[in-house]
């Protein structure tokens, strides 16, 4: 980029000087943007960095108050090895994955259909229903889990991992439905109508036209549902007691904190590894998300 600027001949016409100044201005804006981003990156990456450093230290080094907390003098993978080879970290990981996959699948099926119905079909009370869906989301889970406790107890699902698959959608479905109603309403109705006239039945119209076009909105909702289920803390804390039923969020604290002994190295290693799946999912879905955004242009 800089090479092109330097290559200007000295006697070039005024218009080139103008172009050069424009380019200089743009570069200045770029530098400003990079500085702002750098501040942002430092701010948000400091905690994970600290986690990484701590996870690479032995317990002795962590306990040594004379050392610098930001530097590892003798890096070791023993925390990671301990987590993966003994205890129930892997069980919790698998539990988390199972619950999250089920919850995301259930949520997306229910809320996609619900959002389509509420955005597209006019029926008696549809507007009130759409608002109601959003209001349910506003009820805090700290209030909900008390009555839910009775429900789950009544179903005999206390201390059962699969109770989470029933519980999480009460958080994800309303919000996902709500954001998809917004996105779906922005898709021109004529698109569905053209498909119906072209010979599609309602299911084909939904599957072949509507869902592909609405994919960016659906993926945004998927990311949300995934994040909520993966990071959910209160419900597993309240409803799960035995280690083999636990998911990562509560598993880590219940296994690695004994009384007031915190196994910091393993906690950090466990948390870091727990953060990997969201990273992968974001990286993967973001690509599609952006591709979907650019393909979504309908008119203009």
């Amino acid at each position: 980029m800089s090479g092109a600027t330097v290559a200007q001949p000295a006697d070039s016409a005024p218009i080139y000087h103008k172009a050069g100044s424009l380019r200089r201005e743009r570069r200045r804006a770029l530098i400003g943007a990079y500085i702002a981003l750098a501040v942002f990156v430092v701010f948000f990456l400091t905690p994970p960095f600290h986690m990484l450093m701590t996870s690479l230290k032995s317990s002795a080094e962590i306990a040594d108050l004379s050392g610098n907390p930001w530097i590892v003098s003798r890096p070791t993978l023993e925390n990671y090895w301990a987590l993966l080879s003994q205890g129930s970290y892997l069980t919790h990981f698998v539990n988390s994955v199972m619950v999250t996959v089920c919850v995301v699948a259930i949520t997306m099926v229910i809320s996609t259909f619900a959002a389509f119905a509420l955005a597209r079909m006019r029926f008696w009370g549809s507007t009130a229903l759409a608002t109601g869906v959003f209001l349910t989301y506003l009820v805090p889970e700290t209030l909900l889990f008390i009555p839910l406790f009775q429900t789950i107890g009544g179903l005999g699902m206390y201390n059962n991992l699969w109770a989470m698959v029933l519980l999480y959608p009460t958080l994800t479905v309303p919000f996902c439905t709500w954001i998809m109603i917004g996105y779906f309403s922005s898709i021109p109705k004529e698109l569905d109508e053209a498909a119906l006239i072209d010979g599609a039945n309602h299911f084909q119209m939904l599957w072949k036209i509507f869902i592909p076009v609405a994919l960016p909105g659906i993926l945004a909702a998927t990311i949300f549902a995934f994040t909520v289920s993966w990071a959910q803390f209160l419900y597993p804390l309240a409803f799960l007691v035995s280690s083999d039923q636990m998911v990562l969020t509560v598993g880590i604290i219940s296994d690695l904190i004994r009384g007031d002994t915190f196994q910091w190295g393993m906690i950090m290693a466990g948390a870091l590894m727990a953060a990997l799946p969201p990273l992968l999912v974001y990286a993967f879905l973001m690509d599609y998300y952006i591709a979907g955004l650019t393909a979504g242009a309908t008119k203009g």
Partner: protein
Amino acid sequence: MAQVSLRKIVKEYEGGVQAVKGVDLEIEDHEFVVLVGPSGCGKSTTLRMIAGLEEITAGDIAIGGRVVNDIPPRDRDIAMVFQNYALYPHMSVYENMGFGLTLRKFPKDEIRRRVENAARILDIGNLLDRKPKALSGGQRQRVAMGRAIVRDPKVFLFDEPLSNLDAKLRVQMRTEIKKVHQTVRTTTVYVTHDQVEAMTLADRVVVMNHGVIEQVGPPQDLYHHPTTRFVAGFIGSPAMNFIPARLEQGSGALRLALPDNIALPVPPERTQRYTPYVGRDLLLGIRPEHLTEVKATGKQNIATFEAAPEVVEPMGMETLIHFWIQGAEICAKLDPAVPAEPGRKMTLAVDLNQMHLIDPDSGRVL
């Protein structure tokens, strides 16, 4: 291909809005019918009921002799072109055009043959691999038409297909649509608010207002023989002038007394038709093109009067002048060679063979 019959069609939306109030219309096989009227008059609603996108509150719609009231759009064998084109954004032009045939399980080579044929008619053969996003407005318009053509349906429905295009492209695509219809001869119902589009495209024009049909007829018929004041004012550009006038019995012939002491003789052949209305306050309707400078044509029934233009608009091919007779704005169309200046009196000739008399109470042309 087929005829379309609308029998006493009524559409009432929830909330009690009657968008269409009993429309009767017979559309012949191969015919190009244009529904025209001001915004909100129920054109789109009528079209969407033919398409099956809106339920019919009362009445019957038949396509090719079969009543389709309860038949879903996909089984009506129609194709529709929307104002915003409604191309499927995730599909290429080829897939967009072939979608309907794919759904109907046509063999692949038949789909290819039909798409390529339609692409040739519309001159979009080089765009088949593109996504709609990469097309200009006019090209999208063509693809939307191509999607209709490949289906070879019984009826084409168009809802303001040219409204999103700029003026020049609109004229070009108008010709294109006419050409396509002359090639494929499919029965067509076309909705527009633009009377020029209606006049240029239609075999028959249907003028709608407030959910009812005002008049149906070939373009020339509507222009020369409007039956209501609404049609008289809606068809033609610049619009017809309406001047308050009193019909009086003169010596031997009828006479129209206009404000400002202008008196115009009624053509003798119309005496019988107008006699019942003597003494009534009526509206004289005269088109700007029949209100001109004095010409030596030797035609009968030309009257003259004096007026001073207040605004002069040279258009190149003609010059429009505007003046006021007691609050009624009048427009006249002059030859550009005629000198016209604001404020300077000039003599105008009115061709009374082309006059209309309107009963202001009923709005009917007498």
